[in-house]
């Protein structure tokens, strides 16, 4: 029983990490075919926004997290308006531009906040089960990641905006001819992606050391998850994250965390060799 719970806990922890790391990136990529290389910095902004509001403004943690998300949304909105929007016809260039933004933001954080910042304590307590101790907060994170996914599915499948968004993914020209304001859809999507990245930073902030490169802890996981999810990350994200976290937890529990990351990379390279369009491609093929 304890063994089962332990396995579930490890797996759930890895799964929620991959899902939360990738979700903002996946939303933006799925809609706009842009890989936001500044994704890690969006997470950093969310984390710093939270910690600064909690420490300096003395706000309670949930409100501080809300602030962190708001700041990230504002940043994403400004960025989309002044840079990304002008590069829509050139997907590779827009990716390169987001890398420039990533460098500017991460180094500015280093200049403004210094190499490290006083962190927060992990909220909630630990509980003991057999020989192991578990953090309640991490269990909460697993639940939050599932909740976010459910909310996103409702947003994109049931809401009015979701219909417009899916029409834009399918064919932007025809959607715009039918009166969908494609630009607006893109802006909102970019803000949703930013919000999700900011949320990831905000809720992981109490569990990590606050350094300017905090976002970089997420990006490799985010990249590999989106790559294995394939061309339509909305479909492929959950199977991809499940598969990768299974790989990672099984390897990490036998060897070492770094070997776990190496295993992640190798499984990705093997997956793309045999499933070039990732899990979403596989699922669409199975449907047919």
């Amino acid at each position, binding site marked *: 029983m304890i063994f089962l719970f332990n396995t579930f806990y490890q797996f759930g922890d890895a799964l929620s990490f991959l899902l939360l790391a990738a979700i903002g990136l996946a939303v933006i990529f799925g809609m706009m075919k842009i890989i936001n290389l500044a994704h890690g910095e969006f997470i950093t902004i969310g984390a710093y926004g939270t910690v600064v509001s909690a420490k300096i403004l003395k706000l309670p943690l949930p409100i501080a997290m809300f602030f962190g998300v708001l700041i990230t949304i504002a940043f994403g909105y400004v960025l989309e308006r002044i840079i990304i929007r002008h590069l829509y016809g050139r997907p590779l260039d827009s990716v390169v531009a987001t*890398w420039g933004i990533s*460098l500017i933001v991460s180094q500015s954080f280093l200049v403004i906040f210094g190499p490290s910042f006083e962190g927060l304590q992990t909220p909630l307590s630990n509980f003991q089960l057999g020989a192991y101790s578990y953090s309640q907060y991490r269990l909460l994170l697993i639940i939050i990641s599932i909740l976010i996914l459910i909310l996103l599915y409702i947003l994109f499948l049931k809401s009015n905006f979701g219909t417009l968004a899916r029409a834009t993914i399918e064919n932007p020209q025809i959607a715009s001819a039918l009166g969908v304001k494609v630009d607006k859809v893109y802006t909102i999507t970019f803000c949703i992606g930013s919000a999700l990245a900011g949320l990831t930073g905000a809720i992981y902030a109490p569990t990590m050391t606050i350094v300017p490169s905090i976002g970089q802890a997420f990006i490799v996981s985010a990249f*590999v998850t989106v790559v294995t999810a394939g061309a339509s990350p909305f479909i492929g994200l959950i199977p991809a994250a499940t598969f990768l976290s299974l790989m990672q937890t099984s390897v990490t529990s036998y060897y070492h965390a770094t070997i776990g990351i190496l295993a992640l990379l190798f499984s*990705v390279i093997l997956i793309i060799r045999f499933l070039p369009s990732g899990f979403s491609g596989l699922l669409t093929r199975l449907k047919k």
Partner: protein
Amino acid sequence: MIKKDNIFIVSTFLFLLIIPILLDDFYLNNISYFMLWTFISLGLALIWGMGGILSFGQTAFFGLAGYSFAIISINFADTFAVGIWSPILALFITAIFGMIVGYFLFYGGIYDVFIGIVTLSITLVLETFMAQTAGPEWAIGKARLNGFNGMQGMPPLGISLGEYKFYLQGMGQYYFIVLLAIVSLWLLYKLKKSSFGLILLASKEDRVRAESLGHNVKKIQMIAFTLSALFAGLSGILYTNWGGYITPSSMGLIAAAMPVIWVAASGKRDFFSVFLGCIFLVYISQALAIDGAQYAIIVMGLILVFVTRYFPDGIILMLKRFLSNKLSTKNRL
């Protein structure tokens, strides 16, 4: 007879060949440092400018070559001719690795931005891996990998023939790098005009059409990718030899961005522009880094955003076109 297009190239290299007379070793070493980065940029220009393959992880090959070179030269420090064999072996390892990665990318049907993400992931994972090799169990032969601090203490690259010893330092190193640059540029321009280069160009314009014309596009792309890995490896070896050290952060996110910035800002379609622009930008980074490396990186990021937004063709290439237009109008008069 010198063609009009080549005036810039010939005069630049004449200048580079002559200036050692005027400069002492300190400045020469600096210029060598600026120039050793041109190879990784030229490799990226080959696959990005000509092939439309945007690799974000050229530093993986840079680091792999640097580390292999360091490990081999430390292990065989006292053997005859290690100076020749260690770089060649390191380049060989890099080429094999590049070919394997290229095989999985192109035969796996990975294109566009996914290539960038996969290659970036590779270099970041290599960085994470090398950074945790601090313990004594991480050693290959006599060479400790030293984790985050990186490797150092490798013997300088050189050859000794009996009494005569020649090390790649100071002026020798400078001329060696200039020579390598001339050979590389010549090779790349040849390649651009060869059928290989034309197929690569065609595959960038329209992959499917090039394939349906009967060309083995995947193979061509894999070979081009391997070549670019070799160029990146060359930079890695020269860098390791220049400073006598190699660290995991040379494969990190910031290091990986630099070649992309240099190539994008210079003009990815023209090798000579990339060569010049790279030297110039490395010089700027170094000059700015006096006040702190973070400011230099912020400026590089700004340059990248600015250039992709306003000058997608690259600034140096634009200047070069402008100048050669001026020259040709003068000739006509």
